[in-house]
């Protein structure tokens, strides 16, 4: 595996921090250099949040800048396109199809763009779009959207052995929540598009 830059985007409160911690733990377990850049503070209150995970042999900057992400992992569809400039040409977008209205939309100052998924599908990117929210609910908690999406991501990274992902989960999820999250991860990993 050469360098891998994963940009995790979503809405404050959706669990992007845990997702990046999980990915970071996995990278460390396979013996790679890794840097993660997180967002804490103001934007955690329902704002647009972005977290960078960079895996490779010798990582300098913890940030993924414009045109540098191999994969965008989006927890919400509008966020997937908000950050699209950060994706390399021909990169991969994995997105939850859930919509969360930003306040300007809620107040009717503007509208939520439609056809986001169609436009993404038409663009020069590899797209995986799924209802991660429902899968999370099926596995036992709506809070596991993040882990479902990481399950999907894990399928696109065959270089990382399956047991490492489980070890990563064990490392970052508290024992009493491990079962639900393992189920959520499996749901994502076994998710078949169509």
């Amino acid at each position, binding site marked *: 595996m050469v360098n891998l830059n994963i940009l995790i985007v979503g809405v404050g409160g959706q669990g992007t921090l845990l997702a990046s911690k999980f990915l970071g733990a996995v990278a460390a377990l396979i013996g790679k250099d890794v*840097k993660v850049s997180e967002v804490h503070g103001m934007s955690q*209150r329902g704002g*647009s949040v972005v977290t960078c995970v960079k895996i490779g042999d010798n990582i300098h900057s*913890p940030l993924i800048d414009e045109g540098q992400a191999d994969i965008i992992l989006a927890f919400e569809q509008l966020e997937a396109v*908000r950050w699209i400039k950060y994706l390399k040409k021909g990169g991969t977008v994995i997105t939850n199809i859930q919509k969360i209205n930003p306040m300007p939309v*809620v107040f009717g100052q503007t509208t939520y763009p439609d056809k986001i998924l169609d436009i993404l599908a038409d663009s020069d990117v590899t797209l995986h779009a799924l209802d991660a929210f429902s899968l999370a609910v099926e596995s036992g908690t709506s809070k596991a959207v993040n882990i479902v999406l990481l399950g999907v991501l894990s399928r696109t990274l065959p270089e990382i052995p399956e047991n490492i992902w489980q070890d990563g989960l064990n490392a970052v999820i508290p024992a009493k929540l491990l079962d639900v999250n393992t189920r959520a991860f499996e749901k994502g990993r076994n998710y078949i598009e169509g």
Partner: protein
Amino acid sequence: MKKLLLGNEAIARGAWEAGVHVVASYPGTPSTEITENISKYDEIYSEWAPNEKVALEVSIGASVTGARAMSAMKHVGLNVAADPLYTASYTGVNGGLVIVVADDPGMHSSQNEQDSRYHALASHIPMLEPSDSQECLDFTKAAFDISEKFDTPVIIRTTTRIAHQRSLVELSDRQELPKKEYKKDIMKYVMMPGMAIKRHVIVDKRMNDLENNKEVSSLVNKIEYNDKTLGIITSGISYQYTKEVFPNASVLKIGLVNPMPTELIKEFAANVDKLLVIEELEPYMENFVKQIGILKAEGKKYFTNQGELNTVKIASAYYGTKPESAELSQDIQAPARPPVMCPGCPHRGVFYVLSNMKVRVSGDIGCYTLGAMAPYASVDTCVCMGASVSMAHGAQKGELATGSDIIPTVAIIGDSTFMHSGITGLVDIVYNKGTSTVIILDNSITGMTGHQQNPTTGYTIKMEEAPKIDLVKLCEALGIKRVRVEDPFDLPAFKQAVSEELSCDEPSVIISRRPCVLLKNVKYGKNPIINQDKCRKCGKCMKLGCPAIFKEDGKYLIDDAICAGCGLCVQMCPFGCIEKEI
């Protein structure tokens, strides 16, 4: 095996390994996790102090007795702590004393983007600047050693991208140090003019000694010679960007940014053709380099002093290159997604009420600053913590002094912020015969920075029970005769309370009491639903500005996934269509 640690976790770990005994801080993004992590170590006494000045004074006191001590704060917190800081520089230390200051270029969670390196310069205090988590740990340990060896407080400066990045770190064990003895020494610890004059001489000497100390310099400063046609002087996060954008250039990475290494810079400059200085915010290093006579240095000519740098900004400023990004088949204008008060936030009731009254709102800093945004657009001003109270008083005095119409004004201030620096403002109102109305938003927590305990919550940083400062008694003791406690979710009563207090001719305090919805003990039960058969589409419920209420295909709906079940919206519907099971 190495561990993946947040920069802030690594600083906490470094302090623990260095044998720190006492850590006193006040929260502030991006510094908060340092002290939160410290509180997990049983060997360390830790506390949330009411503000940064108190925090630093606690650490100075501990240091004088011989304990190793540390305080962490955000950049603006260092302004609050600046008074003890500048004189602790003169007294020096007994046990090692370290101050961590976290700057926020780009203002992810701040009201300004000041460059704290100038505090180090002006106070003659050494400052270290790490560039990843390993250095966060190593420099913290080095800081304690430098502090004791050179008899000085030491500042560690981070920025958001260092504080909030995770990278791999090698850990070691804690070093238990023999306790240092306390010796009374008024020439060192009592700063009256006669003593301070002598200490100033010592301060200048120690900074000079430190600058010329080879051991310290080789530990924290390093030259990486490579292609010598381009040399770059940099530090902190900018070093990481530099290594990506200019992998072949020669680099002088400065770890000790005060005092700057004059000789090393001269040597480096002499060995490279072109010399760049890459740093965020102000041209602190660039000016120094020019001041020691190296006029070929260039920096802010290319790179802005506003906001953060990153690899793309640096490359485009220097080379004029543009990033190659994926493009959408069709343009999408993504509406902005600003932060909002949570669904169920207790502050929402207050702002709904205030936005429907003709009042000026003297604002403050916390989750409730979001009351400045739509749909409330209530807040008129926000400068710094505590300013709501004193500025409301100033507004009234200003209008009186100029003979202008008096605009009814309320100050709004959170519980933590009131403890931090609101009390003195209230003293001023009472003493100087103001009649302002102050609303204390008591949500039982320090919300904005991620839920820290404070003197009004009844718990310490380690979640041990603690005496609770009684806000009502406190305000009464200050001489406020009209103190009342109101529930911000009882909208008519709250509005009535504000009107009454505004119309009376003496100072008053309204304590708006309801806990933050994110606290574990807050349980609201089932989410309400909007009865679609009864709904008359008046849209009044939307005026509350709760992100869980939305309109789709002409219908008003509640988003079950994010609604907190607080029930505040039930009061909004004039036709009783919002139904909540109790």
